[in-house]
């Protein structure tokens, strides 16, 4: 990448993805994806099951290695940096996992304080104040001595957000924030994301397949299908889009039955045809 582009990236985009390809073994999951995430915006990555959106998120936080392409986070290409440089970047990002991923053997408070105890030399009393502050931000004040197993699904997600916020990250990632929650609790999590966005001007990236939640929280959306970007744009642009694949996803239209049946027949007979050849 030439320097002029790098410079422009640093001024406008917090994250820039260029021609990203990711493989699981032989199979390519993402086929050359490029997009930017601007500072302070909330980008929602939409896509169906198996579209590659979770893989994209895992690659952005460095859990999967790209097979080709670049991911620029705060001016560094994480596809080509050492693990200690990656750790430095990870201290500036927070990630809220789908099931919360709280450590079952620790209390909620210990979970939230863990990054602080690991990466800072703060006094124990300061850590305690910060942890109460973080729990309050997510509406869980008074729950620091509970074990994760004693919390409901929605509370676990809130605790996970508090842990992701512990290091005051500049970028926050959410994996399916409303998956497995009832509509009211899910709306509460959406509200929490909106509050974080307004209060801290954080860059937020959310992976979801929940349209209602996407419309509510997104500044811009990316629609991914079968490992490719189908459309990218602001919420209004997406709403107004006439692309068939976008309309199909946004209007929640099932795959056409006829095509499906033909595919199905073909799939059933393919093996036999191949053998008779």
């Amino acid at each position, binding site marked *: 990448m030439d320097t002029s582009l790098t410079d422009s990236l640093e001024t406008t985009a917090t994250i820039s993805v260029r021609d990203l390809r990711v493989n699981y073994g032989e199979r390519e999951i993402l086929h050359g994806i490029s997009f930017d995430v601007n500072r302070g915006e909330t980008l929602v990555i939409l896509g169906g099951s198996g579209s590659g959106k979770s893989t994209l998120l895992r690659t952005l936080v460095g859990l999967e290695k790209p097979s080709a392409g670049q991911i620029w986070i705060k001016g560094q290409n994480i596809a080509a940096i050492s693990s200690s440089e990656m750790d430095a970047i990870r201290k500036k990002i927070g990630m809220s996992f789908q099931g919360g991923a709280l*450590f079952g053997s620790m209390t909620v408070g210990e979970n939230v304080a*863990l990054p602080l105890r690991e990466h800072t030399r703060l006094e124990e009393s300061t850590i305690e104040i910060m942890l109460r502050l973080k729990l309050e931000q997510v509406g869980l004040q008074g729950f620091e001595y509970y074990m994760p197993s004693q919390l409901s699904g929605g509370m676990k997600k809130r605790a996970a957000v508090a842990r992701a916020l512990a290091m005051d990250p500049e970028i926050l990632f959410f994996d399916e924030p409303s998956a497995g929650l009832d509509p009211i609790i899910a709306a509460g999590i959406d509200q929490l994301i909106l509050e974080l966005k307004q209060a801290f001007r954080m860059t937020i990236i959310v992976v979801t397949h929940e349209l209602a939640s996407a419309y509510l929280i997104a500044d811009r959306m990316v629609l991914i299908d079968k490992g490719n970007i189908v459309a990218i744009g602001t919420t209004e642009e997406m709403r107004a889009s006439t692309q068939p694949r976008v309309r199909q996803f946004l209007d929640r239209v099932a795959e056409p039955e006829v095509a499906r049946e033909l595919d199905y027949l073909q799939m059933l007979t393919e093996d036999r045809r191949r053998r008779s050849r």
Partner: protein
Amino acid sequence: MQILSQVGGSVTNGLAYVGALASLGGQAAYYTFVAPFQGKPVRFQRAVSQALDVGVRAIPILSLITFFIGLILALQAAYELRRFGAISYVATAVAISMSRELGPLITAIVVIGRSGSAFAAEIGTMKVTEEIDALETMAISPVHFLVTPKFIAMAIMLPCLTIWANTMGILGGSLFGVAQADFTFTRYISASLDSLFLRDIVTGLIKSVMFGITITAVGCLEGLSTGAGAEQVGRSTTRAVVMSIFMVVIVDLVFTALFFFISEH
């Protein structure tokens, strides 16, 4: 031709597995001996709580098993020895076979059942619930945080348990000695102690340290390589037990042979 390629494939897989174990052990050694001097202290608190779990809580069951093993050994040895009128050598037979071989081995097998499987299940569950991923995104090394304290706990507790197992085995043998072989309790114990060389005990303890490291490496590696889904945790746990027993026997063989050839010279 196909058999050859299958054999080659298995050998390569086996070597890759041993390599993965060694790599995990190497990383744990780095976090134990090098990283503390670079400002990443060892988690002693976690190591101590692991040591309690691995060591102290294993004592009742281990005592019972090794006591009976000592008694069985005495019975088996006496079966042959009494034909030669050498029943008084029962104490020697029990003491030597316990401290050289059976003490370390039985201890290892009890610890595999209690802790090796638990390591795989704990880490495997954390893998399935994305907790391992969460550690990594928080820039916390899972090997430093989870695996290293287990290595430390096992490398320290296994020799301790082995000494205890040797003692209990000798006590079990003494039950037979006193009841059937005209020993008094004190004479049986002193006969056992007289028959032991320091070398017998030390080689047993060296082996037990290696067993502890092997069991931890296998348990943690199986946990970390757990696939997606809850049923994979069960599979990892089973594999951890089977592979640990196998690897412990291999390590036993290697070190026993090593000590044999060293003592020859």
